């Protein structure tokens, strides 16, 4: 079986995010970009499933401008077999992303589509669920453990009340949570090998997908700076202070 993994290029989690002076978005010029950490976990899990003998091929896919190749190469260096790059310079919102992944799934016919539970740039947490609805495949989101048994996946999910274990028929969609695994370090020879692994570029226009942004970003602002706190001596003082601020 094949596993298709979606990966996204995002501002590296170590970088302090800065809003562009005109409020039109987040500054990305000269900023370190990396693979979304949850997607890295998804790639790792797909590789582990393959290494356990439960899959034959791991395909990674991304949607975005030319520079996203870097993240595909990283995934190939981790061990993925081949990569698909859907080229576009436009901003891709979750619904469009899900439609594109659906088109790729139709083409590749994987048994599992693995995604990160969310991307750390917009924290939408929507793509996996939308892809589930579009493809009519079962979905298991926030996975913290995945076991493959024949044609089913046993997935443990992290939910508010604790852990929930699902058994879903394949083909299915699984989204990875933080505790699913710890991604491997890439090895130098594998970085060199990754350069020679197949990477197919497809223009977004060639996929016949409806690209319709459904959400418009009006303004981006940095969070308000935290003001210095004050110390209060008693509960009465606290209540007065809160009242003065109009908070109670």
């Amino acid at each position, binding site marked *: 079986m094949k596993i298709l993994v979606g990966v996204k290029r995002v501002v590296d989690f*170590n970088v*302090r995010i800065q809003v562009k002076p005109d409020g039109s978005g987040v500054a990305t*010029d*000269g900023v370190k970009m990396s693979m979304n950490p949850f997607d890295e976990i998804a790639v790792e899990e797909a590789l582990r499933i393959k290494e356990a003998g439960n899959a034959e091929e791991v395909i990674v896919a991304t949607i975005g401008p030319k520079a996203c190749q870097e993240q595909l190469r990283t995934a190939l260096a981790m061990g993925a077999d081949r990569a698909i790059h859907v080229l576009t310079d436009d901003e891709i919102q979750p619904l469009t992303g899900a439609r594109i992944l659906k088109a790729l799934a139709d083409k590749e016919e994987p048994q599992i589509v693995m995604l990160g539970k969310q991307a750390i740039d917009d924290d939408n947490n929507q793509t996996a669920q939308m892809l589930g609805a579009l493809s009519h495949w079962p979905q298991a989101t926030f996975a913290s453990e995945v076991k493959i048994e024949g044609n089913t996946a046993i997935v443990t999910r992290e939910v508010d009340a604790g852990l929930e274990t699902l058994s879903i028929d394949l083909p299915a969609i699984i989204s990875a949570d933080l505790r699913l695994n710890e991604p491997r370090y890439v090895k*130098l*020879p594998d970085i060199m090998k990754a350069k020679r692994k197949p990477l197919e570029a497809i223009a977004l226009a060639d996929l016949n997908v409806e690209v319709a942004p459904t959400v418009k970003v009006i303004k981006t602002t940095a969070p308000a700076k935290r003001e210095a706190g004050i110390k209060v001596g008693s509960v009465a003082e606290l209540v007065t202070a809160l009242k003065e601020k109009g908070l109670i």
Partner: protein
Amino acid sequence: MERESMEFDVVIVGAGPAGLSAACKLMQLAEKNEQELMVCVIEKGSEVGAHILSGAVLEPTAMNELFPNWKELGAPLNTEVKGDDVYYLTGEDKGIRTPNFFIPKPMHNDGNYIVSMGNVCRWMAEQAEGMGVEIFPGFTASEILYNDDGSVKGILTGDMGIAEDGSEKDSYMPGMELLAKQTIFAEGCRGHLGKQLMESFDLNKDADPQHYGLGIKEVWTIDPEKHQEGLVVHTAGWPLDNHTEGGGFLYHMENNQVSLGFIVALNYTNPHLSPFDEMQRWKSNPKISQFLEGGERVSYGARAVNKGGMQSVPKLSFPGGLLVGCDAGFLNGAKIKGNHTAMKTGMLAAETVIESLKAGDVAGKELSLMDEKYKSSWVFDELHKTRNFGPALHKFGTFLGGTFSWFDQNIFAGKLPFTWRNTTPDHATLKPAAKCPVINYPKPDGKITFDKLSSVFLSSTNHEEDQPCHLKLTDPSIPLSQNLPLYNEPAQLYCPAGVYEVVKDEEGNDKFQINGQNCVHCKTCDIKDPAQNITWVTPEGGGGPNYGNM
């Protein structure tokens, strides 16, 4: 332990201007000779440019030689220097503009470019990769590998996934041997392997000790009304006294940004001096703050520079390898410029390797052709002309020394028939704390001046938490038994990232604490510790600052 290995013709340590120029030149020459050449560059930063911090006013000499068509190729040299102001700051709120005529010639900047050297390196890395160089960011060269005959055979990359207590984590990945006929060391100022090479091959035999400065830099986005793209501002004088060398710079880059910084020479004598706080209060002088008011600080970082000049340049060749760029110490102290000399010496190393390959086997050989090439290059001429600049400042203080330099450079063009030397290493200059005045630094105002922690935050520094500390104490007792009573443990002040602290433990006793995860890899502690007790070693690859356009 059996380790995996890979073989190359040339391994280059460090993807800075020196290492990348060497890589590009190697491939250009190999192509010209229709020669197959396997070259790799290994870089400890998480990506190329992540650990690059420079001013930077770039003198395009070496770039013109390496890529005569750099403009068409899209090199990010976008802002030509349009104005060149030098101020002598006389106090907190005063400064006088030095007439152009009085400025020593090497400090003029006509024809130079204001750049982000990090972005220039990213661009050079693309060129190198395009020519077939393998670049491995996120990997450190942690050890030198030697052949049985003592010659260098390559480097070992750092192990990944080692826990703080030294045990192997689940993610453990042992380092690999990268073997080469010649290894080019381009680690920049105070290279951790370069330092070992100088010792094992006694490369400093005929050189004076190296001298250093610590440069602390910020990038600001400023009010477009106040921005004058292409303007270069330098300052001397306040807040340093006449016995402490150093000075400030402020460059108006593209996109309404300014790059500004302050360099303090590490031969300062008062252990109460804090380079970080000098830099912060320097910004409050109106000559600087006029540009910053209403702006926002976007980035912070620090890096040592070597400023020993010609007298401190070591031997560059040794069996199996070469030293280039600031790993050897080619910064021109009069200009505070080292990028063009780093690039040029990288290129000379490439020529040396290719020409020697023509003559036969180079594996493990000592290519003294490199030293000859350096001595007949413009890098040597340049350093020779300005050789008395640093020592003059040291001998006469910054004011008279500056006057000497004006005569030396503008009237005698650097040809005075003598060479001054400065043979006291920087770690040996501190006077006892009790004999020095305490310096009262003003509190940060949160607008122009800031505290250390909020500053380090802007360097986007990160190290995997669970790993052995990469700042090694030879004798763990020295900080508290010697440095504290004698010098008030100066690491607390000279480290620009707040890594070293003397705190109280539960019983109220002093404890020396090392917050290694904050380290911005400036190398100052390795240089300035009076007992030479701190050794900076490579942490897990990818750790350290994540500089954007520094």
